[in-house]
């Protein structure tokens, strides 16, 4: 009860902060960085919902991102659909892919599921290169129309999308759905014995996770105005996983902070541009060793209990 009010206040504060930042500091560079960080936030939150709650870490999240991005790219450049159509289309395509790859792989134990998903992403990257005539190969698809012409306007749109997705997934995670996912993490067989259709929940959760990842991919496509096979790269998946670890697995809101923090951090180290991947990998190693529960979510929880203690 009290905790929920602090949560709500915190969320509002965060939104206000994020909305105000570009107004205070201005400059297209900052807005650009913030937009990218927000999109990563959407990807990180979508990953956390499925993999964080069920403990089935998905090493191929970039698959859904890429599918969403390429769908948007195709619909826009080849068929002339506006961005507002490509968003739902991207979500649907991502969900289809999730269904197709999820059915055979979700039966597998943790590490094997992770590697199977990784293989899926690698294969998509390959396919984009093999069918270069249709997909533009290394160059990818260029000349995508921006969703919103104004830089600031696009940022606010992306921010709104992040807030919406986070709120939705948070609600789902706090509901019985989330309870079931966490129980699946605990003991699948016992869940079955309790009458829960575990397969349905796993696949459905992967599809939900994929849908939002794809949405983020479509938003990204309409922001960068181009998509390339790099989106499917393992780098993308690892970056997102690092963000979730920093934010705090299974918290849903933590990964938002993780994403923004990491993107801002690496932008600050812009001069070390080529070292970015290194930074992410080393961060991951450090987090796994010293802060396996993450940074953001545990800090927030501690702040909450301190505040509650005062009352």
């Amino acid at each position, binding site marked *: 009860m009290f905790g929920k009010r602090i949560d709500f206040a915190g969320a509002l504060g965060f939104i206000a902060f994020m909305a105000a930042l570009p107004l205070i500091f201005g400059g297209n560079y900052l807005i650009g960085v913030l937009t990218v960080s927000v999109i990563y936030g959407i990807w990180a939150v979508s990953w956390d919902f499925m993999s964080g709650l069920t403990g089935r870490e998905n090493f191929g999240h970039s698959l859904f991102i890429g599918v969403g991005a390429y769908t948007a790219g195709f619909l826009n450049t080849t068929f002339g659909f506006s961005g507002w159509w490509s968003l739902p289309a991207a979500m649907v395509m991502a969900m289809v892919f999730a269904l197709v790859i999820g059915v055979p792989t979700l039966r597998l134990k943790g590490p094997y599921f992770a*590697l199977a998903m990784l293989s899926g992403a690698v294969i998509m990257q390959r396919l984009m290169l093999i069918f270069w005539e249709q997909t533009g190969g290394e160059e990818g698809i260029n000349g995508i129309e921006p969703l919103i012409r104004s830089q600031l306007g696009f940022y606010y749109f992306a921010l709104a999308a992040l807030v919406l997705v986070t709120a939705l997934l948070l609600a789902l995670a706090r509901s019985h759905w989330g309870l079931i996912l966490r129980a699946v993490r605990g003991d699948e067989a016992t869940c079955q014995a309790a009458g829960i259709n575990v397969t349905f929940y796993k696949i459905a959760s992967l599809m939900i996770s994929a849908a939002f990842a794809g949405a983020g991919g479509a938003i990204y496509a309409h922001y960068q105005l181009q998509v390339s096979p790099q989106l499917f790269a393992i780098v993308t998946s690892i970056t997102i996983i690092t963000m979730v670890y920093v934010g705090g697995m299974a918290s849903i809101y933590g990964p938002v902070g993780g994403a923004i923090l990491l993107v801002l951090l690496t932008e600050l180290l812009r001069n070390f541009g080529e070292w970015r991947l*290194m930074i992410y990998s080393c961060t991951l190693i450090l987090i796994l060793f010293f802060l396996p529960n993450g940074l953001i979510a545990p800090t927030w929880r501690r702040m909450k209990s301190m505040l509650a203690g005062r009352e």
Partner: protein
Amino acid sequence: MLEILIHGAVSSAIYAMLAVGFTLIFGVARILNLAHGSFYALGAYGAYFFTAQLKLPLLPAALLAIALVALFGVVVERVLVRPMRRSQLAVLMITLAVALVVEQVLFLTFGSEYRNVPAFVETKFTIGGVDVGGQRLLALGVSVTLIALLWIFIQRTRLGSAILAVSQDPEAANYMGIPSDRIFSIVMGLSAALAAAAGVLAGPFLTVQPTMWLLPIVKAFAIVIVGGLGSIPGSILAALMLGYAETIVGYLISTSWTEIVSVLATLLMLVFRPAGIFGKRAAF
């Protein structure tokens, strides 16, 4: 036809070396080592570096590279993997992070252009009317020899028996006076050495660039899934199957499709027979 036979054999041999190392460390220590591909890459780059930059003759350069990579493998296991052993997923992530770090280091040091690893044998041979590079034949021969040596080592020596014991039950082996932890390190070193050797041998005729670690790991994973996790004979058989499947696809369709073969094989196997051909422990 003979071309396919020979080239398929060469591919299979390289894959077998990669897969055997991968399945070995899994079978013994339950570690799915995503940095395995990095050992392969480091082997190739090591050979390049020691010959091109340090001007060492080829054989010592190759051996030095393999030895250093083996050492690196042991260090990774000891420092990064062992504290994480409680969770297979954590090990997966750590080794993946290591792989990415290695890729970055290689990129920053050597750049992204393809590098030239010198071959042991430059001449081309003609067998039954088919042209085959001498290096490929060497790779085939050395791979077969090394795997055979490994097999004999495990079956016939005391250390080999210790390894088998640890792979069945590390705790029980400990009680019997076998230092499981040290065995893990040794096996990791062996596994890394095999991968590095594959890199040294295949480097001359396969691409050498910083991202070269990813596809081998995807294929090694495919092979051990098909052959059965932890089974060396399974890995060899599956390596043969994959090597030939890829070669045939390469000849009949196109080389760009060859990578798809391994991933498709993985997915199909996972769907229909997750324990693989010889596997005892299923993937779920």
